[in-house]
């Protein structure tokens, strides 16, 4: 411990110019109100805002710079042998230098931040969320410090191994993206955040451990340091990512029995229903199942989207839904015959975010509405457009196939500016697919706050 403090003290003595620079940076926020552009704000607010920006920027940049020089500079300048020729364990060198870097970062932040905080305390009300900002700043500084160290070790070794490092880093980011996407598809936003925080914490621990390992194995040689760091880093990350991947796979594969407070959407006819809900012990991850009450069999739907994007045929024998890699992307229409051992059939038809659609009861045709009031009917087998018309008015569209060749379309006019008491109207049209003609059937007007349309066997019921 004594030797660790000696190392830390030595590094801190070297950092006196950094503290002088921090003191100079602390004066910057007090100069900002002198600029004409700041005249429209109060002096206190300008000092506070610019003080936070200067303190955060200075601390983050300093963290990365310290990381880059933590060990890498001594290695590339062949000075690491100085420490290894003394009775110092690698752990003493590593943690001593790390401790000095962390103290430098914290002290520099205080030097930059404190004068501004003392001068304008009134601006730090509950809404300022200072503690939130600080609690995010320091982990970010630690991450930059350790990442800077790892990058510095890799690049300063001048080894071609750095190409492999970059490839593995890309693979790690890609794997992380896949895991995040899997959770995103289940709308597990809270779980995603916790997952990110835990994974970031573990990666920081790995980087800390690998820094020690690189000195233990590589000692004063920069190439061997790089090799030891890379081996330990990527092996540890691979193990952690395999475990994390296993966890995500478990989260996204709940059974229907795992759903808590499930919501059930029954098909108009038949024994099938769509059941959704958050899965037990899986945070806010939401799963979707098609459930056949007759056989008690369930099928888990992957990559589903929001509630309103699914569709049952009126005879209850066909199901359609939109799937996407992420809920904010374009969607692909998937149809699925509701029978035992049925598999989802991806139609290859892309529907833009917010687009509406309806499928014929036999699942052979689909009508898609885009945001330019254009309605297109596609034959799903040939994947070709067989009729396209422009609707004479815009609004919320609902439609259903009366039969394969006739589509009933309802356009609900609901000007947002006049909500909720203005008169609302629904205009009904019928599209003849064979003649590609659109015929207006009539209007329905009401002053109700909202209108719910339910397609039935003969037409649409309004509520």
């Amino acid at each position: 411990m004594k030797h660790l403090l000696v190392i830390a003290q030595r590094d801190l003595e070297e950092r006196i110019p950094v503290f002088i620079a921090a003191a100079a940076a602390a004066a910057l926020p007090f100069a900002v109100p002198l600029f004409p552009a700041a005249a429209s704000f109060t002096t206190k607010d300008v000092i506070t805002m610019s003080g936070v920006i200067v303190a955060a920027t200075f601390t983050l940049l300093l963290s990365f710079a310290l990381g880059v020089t933590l060990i890498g500079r001594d290695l590339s300048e062949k000075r690491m042998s100085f420490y290894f020729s003394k009775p110092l364990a690698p752990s003493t060198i590593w943690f001593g230098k790390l401790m000095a870097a962390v103290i430098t970062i914290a002290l520099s932040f205080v030097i930059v931040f404190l004068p501004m905080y003392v001068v304008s305390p009134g601006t730090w009300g509950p809404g300022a969320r200072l503690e939130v900002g600080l609690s995010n700043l320091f982990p970010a500084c630690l991450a930059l410090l350790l990442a800077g160290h790892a990058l510095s070790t890799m690049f300063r070794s001048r080894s071609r191994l750095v190409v492999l490092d970059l490839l593995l880093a890309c693979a790690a980011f890609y794997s992380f993206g896949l895991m995040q996407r899997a959770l995103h598809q289940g709308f597990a936003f809270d779980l995603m955040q916790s997952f990110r925080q835990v994974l970031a914490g573990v990666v920081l621990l790995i980087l800390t451990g690998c820094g020690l390992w690189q000195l233990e194995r590589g000692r004063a040689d920069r190439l061997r340091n790089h090799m030891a760091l890379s081996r330990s880093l990527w092996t540890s990350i691979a193990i952690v990512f395999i475990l994390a991947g296993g966890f995500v796979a478990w989260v996204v594969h709940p059974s229907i029995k795992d759903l808590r407070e499930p919501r059930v959407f029954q098909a108009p006819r038949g024994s099938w229903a769509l059941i959704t809900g958050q899965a037990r012990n899986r945070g806010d991850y939401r799963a979707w199942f098609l459930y056949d009450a007759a056989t008690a069999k369930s099928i888990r739907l992957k990559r589903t989207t929001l509630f309103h994007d699914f569709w049952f045929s009126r005879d209850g024998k066909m199901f359609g839904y939109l799937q996407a890699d992420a809920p904010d992307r374009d969607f692909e229409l998937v149809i699925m015959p509701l029978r035992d051992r049925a598999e989802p059939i991806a139609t290859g038809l892309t529907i833009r975010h917010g687009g509406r659609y309806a499928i014929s009861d036999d699942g052979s045709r689909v009508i898609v509405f885009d945001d330019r009031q254009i309605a297109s009917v596609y034959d799903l087998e040939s994947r070709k457009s067989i009729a396209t018309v422009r609707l004479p008015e815009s609004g919320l569209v609902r439609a259903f196939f009366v039969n394969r060749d006739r589509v009933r379309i309802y356009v609900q006019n609901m000007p947002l500016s006049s909500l909720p008491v203005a008169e609302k109207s629904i205009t009904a049209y019928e599209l003849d697919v064979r003649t590609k003609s659109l015929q207006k059937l009539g209007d329905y007007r009401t002053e109700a706050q909202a209108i719910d349309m339910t397609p039935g066997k003969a037409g649409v019921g309004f509520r």
Partner: protein
Amino acid sequence: MSQAETPALSIHELSVRYGRSEVVDRISLTVPRNAVYALLGRNGAGKSSLVRCAIGQQRATSGRVEMFGMDVWRHRASLMERVGIVAEEGDAPAEMRVGRLADFCARLCSRWDRAAFDERLKRFGIAQKPRFGDLSKGQKKQVSLALALAASPEFLILDDPTLGLDAVARKSLFEELIAELADRGTTVFLTTHDLAGIESIADRVGVISGGRLVLDEDLELLKARFRRIRFASRPVALESRFDTAAVRPWGGGTEAIVTNFAGSHAEIAETAEIVPMSLEEIFIAVAGEGAAA
């Protein structure tokens, strides 16, 4: 083997490989306590790699290094309490002042002798104030030596300590080394190009060439068995009588470097000129171009 008999350094079958290139090839050597062992070799012969392995800063590809009977890779930190090291390049932090460097080392070494450090600096004519990075190459070496000796080491390891130094700095460094040996009998292991400098202090000499230890012998014995013999004509039975490192034409006659010259060989002395060889000449014969040791 008692603790006092345990060699200061014992290297067994040490190999170091960088990729496909084997820079140290199964070298074994022993440095007894209180001895001065000089390891000689041309640039790139593998001396520095061997030294790095010997002080636990690099792991050998194979083989074993023991210092005072302990594995140097595993026990490096505790062994460094007993060892002083002068690296090939001045490796102390460049921004540290000389005095602060001594303060820093004093807090790490239990047997630190600050007075001896200050005294040596005075002898070298170096002040405490300058930053280490601002010193000349010779001054850096002198400060490094002063730091290494101030820790009162039992074993001093110097990696080419006179490399790049002028004659005055070289002389001052060797004088300091000789004084240390006279005062405390410290064991010394050094690599060097400065053959004239170490000839007067080395007890044992090793020559490394192409990664292999081609010679490892007491200096006196070595000098006794090497001779340059010049004949007016080529003697008939030269190769059958002596092991020769080189035979080449010399004026109208022949010059031979023999490696097993022993005794007076009075009969040869009548017909040939027998010249003792300096360490430098022996080194060139053993490790120079076309050497056949």
